[in-house]
């Protein structure tokens, strides 16, 4: 057994898993505050990454300026999307809400393909060194940055929800929409804000991933791969999303390792999380950390 490779894969899995956790957090945020499952999460990554790429290539901005510009753009984009498309869907059955976000996902995915083409594009170089070694493990600079950014985002989320007025409003809305509305929380603003935050944070993840692998429409697959992570943790638990993300990130790498060494089935990297998802749902229908619905007539 090749332990060195295995540890390297596990470290990679943890790093990618943190990103899954970040995307999953946005997903849970939107679900908790607006009761909408966002199948267009992957497109947020995609659009953010392309906007950043365009601002670096066509406007020739320095990286951090382009980065900030795309974040501002995405915040506006998320709020607008919520106002135009998702506000009419409040109170509709689940299937309609799911289908609207799926429709958005198809629309933006093909729009991005149409505008930017299908071939992957890479960002201009940001770091001088490609990779550094920590404790004998090779870690790419971009991955290191992604870890730092992911941790910063998580801490920021924590502080925002714990200590800010808006965070409190969002938690109140998630807890009981009607009660918070009657106490003066603007539910409209909370909805718009949660979409704005989700879009911005996802775009950050998209840009980071784009720096590693180049920008192409395969980024939007991340929106689907995050489902196992989110379900594993339970749809309405932010901590669960992070834990689920880490588990899925490690799991797919370990599955890939065992497959390439012993089983030789192929394609395990992509498919293993879905098997785990089905098995988990069989035993725990609300995920590991999700709250169980209790229904009354």
């Amino acid at each position, binding site marked *: 057994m090749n332990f060195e490779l295995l540890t390297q894969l596990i470290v990679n899995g943890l790093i990618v898993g943190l990103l899954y956790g970040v995307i999953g957090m946005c997903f849970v945020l939107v679900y908790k505050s607006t009761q909408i499952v966002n199948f267009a999460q992957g497109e947020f990554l995609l659009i953010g990454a392309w906007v950043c790429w365009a601002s670096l290539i066509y406007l020739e901005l320095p990286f951090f300026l382009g980065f900030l510009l795309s974040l501002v753009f995405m915040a506006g984009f998320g709020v607008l999307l919520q106002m135009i498309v998702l506000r009419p869907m409040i109170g509709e059955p689940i*299937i*309609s809400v799911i*289908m609207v976000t799926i429709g958005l996902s198809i629309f933006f995915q093909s729009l991005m393909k*149409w505008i930017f083409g299908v071939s992957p594009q890479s960002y201009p170089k940001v770091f001088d060194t490609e990779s550094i070694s920590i404790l004998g493990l090779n870690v790419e600079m971009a991955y290191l940055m992604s870890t730092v950014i992911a941790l910063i985002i998580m801490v920021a989320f924590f502080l925002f929800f714990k200590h800010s007025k808006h965070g409190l409003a969002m938690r109140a809305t998630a807890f009981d929409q009607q009660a918070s509305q009657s106490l003066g929380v603007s539910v409209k603003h909370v909805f718009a804000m949660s979409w704005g935050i989700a879009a911005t944070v996802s775009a950050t993840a998209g840009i980071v991933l784009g720096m590693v692998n180049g920008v192409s429409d395969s980024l939007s697959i991340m929106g*689907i791969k995050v489902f196992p992570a989110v379900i594993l943790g339970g749809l309405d638990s932010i901590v669960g999303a992070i834990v689920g993300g880490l588990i899925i990130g490690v799991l797919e790498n370990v599955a890939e390792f065992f497959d390439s060494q012993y089983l030789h089935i192929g394609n395990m990297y992509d498919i293993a999380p879905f098997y785990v998802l*089905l098995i988990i749902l069989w035993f725990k229908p609300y*995920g590991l950390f999700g709250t169980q619905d209790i229904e009354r*007539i």
Partner: protein
Amino acid sequence: MSSLSMRPCGDFRTSYKQDNTIFETKTIRWVTIFTIIALCFAPLVVDGYFITLLIQISYLGIAALGLNILVGYTGQISLGHGAFFGFGAFASAWLNISFEIPVFICIPLAGFLTMGVGMMFGAPAARIKGLYLAIATLASQFIIEDFFARAEWFSGGAAGSMADPVNLFGFAFDTDESFYYIALFALVFMFIWGCNLMRSRDGRAFVAVRDHYLSAEIMGVKLNKYRLLSFGISSFYAGIGGALYAHYLGYVSAEGFTIMMSIQFLAMIIIGGLGSIKGTLMGVIFMVFLPEVLESGVGLMKMTDWGNIPMVIDGLAYIKEMAIGLVIIGFLIFEPEGLAHRWTQIKNYWKFYPFAY
């Protein structure tokens, strides 16, 4: 999802039997029968391209009706219908090649095989619902898709597998015109079956599970049984549709049955109207003709001076996809009850014409 049937004045029902007829009024019955007879003569009148579209409507319509039974009538969500459609296609070709079963027996057999697979993947549905179910079926879509790519004995792997044309008493239905009759027969048969299912005890149980599953359970409807049965029936329809598709094209490859196909099936029933059999057909017709209309629209634009934009002409494939997304969003925002509802409203408008207020 509710459908309010508006009947002409004086058309009263005095028994349950009358209330449960397939066709609401005599006119509807005669119009339907005449339409089917007229469709039988379609190959004599319209050109070959239109016939291929009608065949497409048939096999997609059968599969979409299955999905509507699951989503529209039972209230379960499935994002894996495209994979079941593909499974039916491969299963029929596989049965035909490996066991040399005649094709016209293979098609229903493929339906039953797909039903088994569908119930296997639908089994978690007995315990989970709503969003969790949506994502579980999404997982089954990817797992089945992966299975197609991997199981060479079943699907022929990357090369795909060949499917013979339907052969009945020595007559091969290998042209578009002759296959059209098979497709039309299957469509009419499956739709009548679907209508009858919804009039039966099981159909009413499905609707009860959809409307309020807790109340249904208290009233004695076995939830697990009906949820599973609904998955089975929906996969059966998908399998039949897929098998027809396979024997029509003569060749099945694994690339077609992606998540995009599942979404298109969902789009069809949403556009047509959830929980409406007539609406299913309307939605399928809409979705089959949408790309054709776009294509001819761009073709017309190309001929004028101002419309000859290379970006539009090169990006036609993307525009078609975007149109699907836009149509889904548009219908859900502006007409969430679908075309079937709009049709009823138009009919009522004319029925009450001068006094509609």
